[in-house]
């Protein structure tokens, strides 16, 4: 079977997620689709799987145009998808998860024939060397095995083309090796594989062809046997064209934030942040680069008191803040621009005045005794709207009705408009317009020039490279690189991000 995507274009308001994308994959072939976060990989796959409708272009199977309106159509056409977030019912067994929707039955389609289901699952499992117990409960299984259940689900429905969306993101190195063995056996069986990833080393290792996607466009088709990972990184990241932040040299001052053996674990004891040592000085911007999900979120959450620190210490100007709560941290002169604006940063039902009071409402000048001085809050809000160039009809406007850029400016205004020692900005410009990006970047540089220590976390490499004085790379919870901006390059950092390289950081 041969799958071809021809001229796929998908637009969202304000963005072109896929721009004239062409792809094809044959049975018995592994195609790696690589690209940064936000390059349009997921959109493309959702188009293929019938979840989105493309604005232009067509999907062909063996040369015949297809019209997918739902995943059901895609499944029927022989396309299977292993989602990054598994679609498994945790309290069901392997066999139950696999057969759901196409259950073998007896008694005229009423009674579930679990014996047959088990046998079928066992057969497929053995055929591809997956060693799954059909009666095991999903919630008791490690992630690597859960992924195999997803694969069996796809095979059970006779998929000829299997799409893996970031399949290795949640796996341990050992599980990744096992996964590649399975991919090989699928390939040997004549299945076509689309392997979506941003990990170049893995793409080179497993793929027969590599397609690079950048800002919604296919920018190159390479042969993994000949291509170098540095070349791929350059194709993937592109050159830092449109992000220029003007900033003059600035000598960092004393150490403001100091992390020693800073460690965070999830409730089951898994390491999320692995003995991290980091110092941030006054008048310095430290950029934390890394692919989403390598411990950056947990690091910051633990630092600002939203998550428990398992081990190690955090010192702010020599003062221990390891166990401080968010209110204390705020009190100590730390600003926190949260990663997920909608979830944590704003309250959508509140107006601008209320949102601007969110972290300072409890003390003067915003409060008097047990009540809030809304008049003062209102005046301050009007002042901040002016100062931070928030485009809104009035400060009584609901924040939910503002554009993403203006919502972010509300957060920035709230967090940066006071005396600070340390500013932490997570994904400060995710999903906002260019004008707002420039403005927020200027603000961050101005803070640094004023002698504030700044920590910027971003999965956009361009952003980190544009802002930082020092670039730190996180990979699997560890800090794998600590590089002065002046003496590093996009490609070098990209390799660290992809786990292709590790310095003795």
């Amino acid at each position, binding site marked *: 079977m041969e799958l071809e995507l021809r001229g796929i274009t998908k637009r969202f308001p304000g963005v072109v997620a896929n721009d004239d994308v062409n792809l094809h994959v044959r049975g018995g072939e592994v195609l790696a689709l690589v690209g940064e976060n936000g390059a349009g990989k997921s959109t493309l796959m959702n188009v293929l799987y019938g979840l989105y409708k493309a604005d232009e272009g067509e999907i062909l199977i063996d040369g015949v145009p297809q019209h997918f309106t739902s995943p059901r159509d895609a499944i029927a056409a022989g396309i299977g998808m292993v989602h990054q977030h598994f679609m498994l019912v945790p309290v069901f067994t392997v066999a139950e998860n696999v057969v759901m929707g196409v259950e073998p039955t007896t008694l005229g389609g009423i009674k579930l024939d679990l014996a047959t289901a088990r046998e079928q699952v066992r057969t497929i499992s053995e055929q591809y060397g997956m060693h799954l117990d059909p009666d095991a409960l999903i919630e008791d299984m490690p992630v690597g095995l859960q992924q195999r259940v997803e694969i069996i689900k796809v095979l059970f429905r006779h998929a000829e083309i299997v799409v893996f969306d970031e399949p290795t993101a949640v796996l341990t190195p050992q599980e990744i090796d096992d996964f590649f063995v399975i991919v090989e056996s699928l390939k040997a069986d004549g299945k076509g594989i689309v392997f979506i990833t941003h990990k170049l080393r893995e793409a080179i290792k497993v793929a027969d062809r590599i397609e690079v996607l950048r800002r919604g466009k296919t920018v190159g088709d390479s042969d993994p046997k000949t291509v170098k990972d540095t070349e791929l990184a350059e194709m993937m990241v592109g050159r830092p064209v449109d992000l220029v932040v003007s900033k003059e040299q600035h000598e960092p001052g004393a150490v403001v934030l100091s992390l020693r053996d800073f460690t965070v674990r999830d409730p089951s004891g898994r390491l999320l942040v692995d003995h991290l040592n980091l110092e941030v000085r006054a008048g310095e911007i430290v950029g934390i680069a890394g692919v989403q999900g390598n411990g950056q979120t947990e690091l910051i959450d633990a630092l600002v*008191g*939203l998550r428990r620190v398992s081990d190690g210490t955090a010192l702010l100007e020599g003062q221990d803040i390891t166990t401080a709560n968010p209110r204390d941290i705020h009190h100590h002169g730390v600003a926190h621009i949260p990663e997920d604006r909608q979830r944590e940063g704003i*309250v959508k039902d509140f107006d601008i005045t209320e949102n601007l009071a969110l972290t300072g409402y409890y003390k003067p000048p915003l409060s008097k005794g047990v009540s*809030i001085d809304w008049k003062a809050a209102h005046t301050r809000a009007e002042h901040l709207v002016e100062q931070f160039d928030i485009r809104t009809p*009035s400060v009584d406007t609901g924040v939910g*009705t503002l554009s993403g850029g203006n919502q972010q400016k509300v957060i920035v205004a709230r967090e940066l408009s006071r005396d600070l020692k340390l500013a932490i900005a997570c994904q400060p410009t995710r999903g906002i317009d260019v004008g707002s990006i420039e403005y927020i970047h200027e603000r961050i540089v101005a803070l640094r020039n004023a002698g504030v220590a700044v920590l910027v976390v971003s999965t956009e490499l361009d952003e980190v490279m544009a802002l930082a004085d020092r670039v730190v790379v996180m990979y699997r919870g560890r800090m794998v690189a600590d590089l002065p901006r002046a003496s590093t390059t996009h490609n070098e950092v990209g390799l660290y991000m992809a786990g292709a390289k590790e310095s003795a950081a």
Partner: protein
Amino acid sequence: MTAATVDGNPAPSGPERSSPPKLIAFFDRMDAYNNVLLPLLAIVSALIVGALIIGVTDIDRIKDGDIGGILSTIKDAYLALPSGALGSLRGISETIVSATPLILAGLCFAVAARSGLFNIGATGQMFAGGMAAVWVGFSMNGPGIIQVPLALLAGIIAGGIWGGIVGLLKARTGAHEVITTIMTNYIAGLLTLWLLKTEAFQQPGKDNPISKTVSNEGRLPKLFFWNDDPSQPLRAHWGFLVALGGAVFMWWLFERSKIGFELRTFGSNADAARYAGMKPATLTTLAMFIAGGLAGLGGASQIIGTNFNATESFAGSIGFDAIAVALLGRNKPTGIVFAALLFGILEAGGRKMQLETDVPLDVVLVLRALIVLFIAAPALTKLIWRLKSEGSTSVLQFRGWGA
């Protein structure tokens, strides 16, 4: 919320767009669409469906094919409602008597709802408050100026603790408040029944569970104090003022106070509250304490203002009706006062309707339920009235049974 929603906040009706801009601005500011138009349409829809139900069940006239008779019954019934409730001082007084506990219990639901909690425990919290108040009421014989506030305070504290337990359970163990409040309602009912049979509470010489009577000093003064016609007693009492005070308190709590701001933030976006350094466990307990306190106050004012002694059913269906009141009032204090008065009108007017027509008082229950339906399902109401859809905020979202 305001002018920023440019995609056509459909002002009350289309052709009036050219009316003075000041008026539009005024309607915009009070969010007239959601707070005035929608409730009005809900009431009208409910009255229409209610009329159908009255008509269809008029078996005798249907048998006779007496359509005109049916229509005039409906007309008489619906005219009796406002005239019974508002046509006389007596009617107004009865309307107020019915509305008073509904206001406080409605505030109880709304305070919790705006803090993100589904408190259906107003009944139990009223029992707790009422029993505390009745005990103060019959066991003390001091001057009213001390005894009445003391009874009300006892009601607030007892109701607050009864609600606070639910909040504490939720904060500490995640026990879902819908279940725990249903259970604490029954427990409160049974405890009340038991207390009413104990020597400490039971009226001497009675076999049935009924408490001793609140001393004359310990009663809330009458609202229409100038009325001294014994043949026409006007039962409305200062509990109404207390309830209005409760509404003002809720307004102050959510619009002015720090704690209210925290509760509101927690109710709208718990993650943002945590991020901003607020303490969810404390807020959950506190929200339920305040809510319970308001319902307890409602129970207390019912006892020392209207009933003067406690029975096993003094909280009656008020706790559940209050949910409807709060929904109709969109969880806002002013809305709740108006909604409770409307329910009071239905109740007081319903009695006249029952006397003058053959339509039973129970039709009021049907009307209330229908009003709740049309309020809770704005999309349905809009569909019926062919209005353009506009994002209207949902009152509250159930968050699963919790793990």
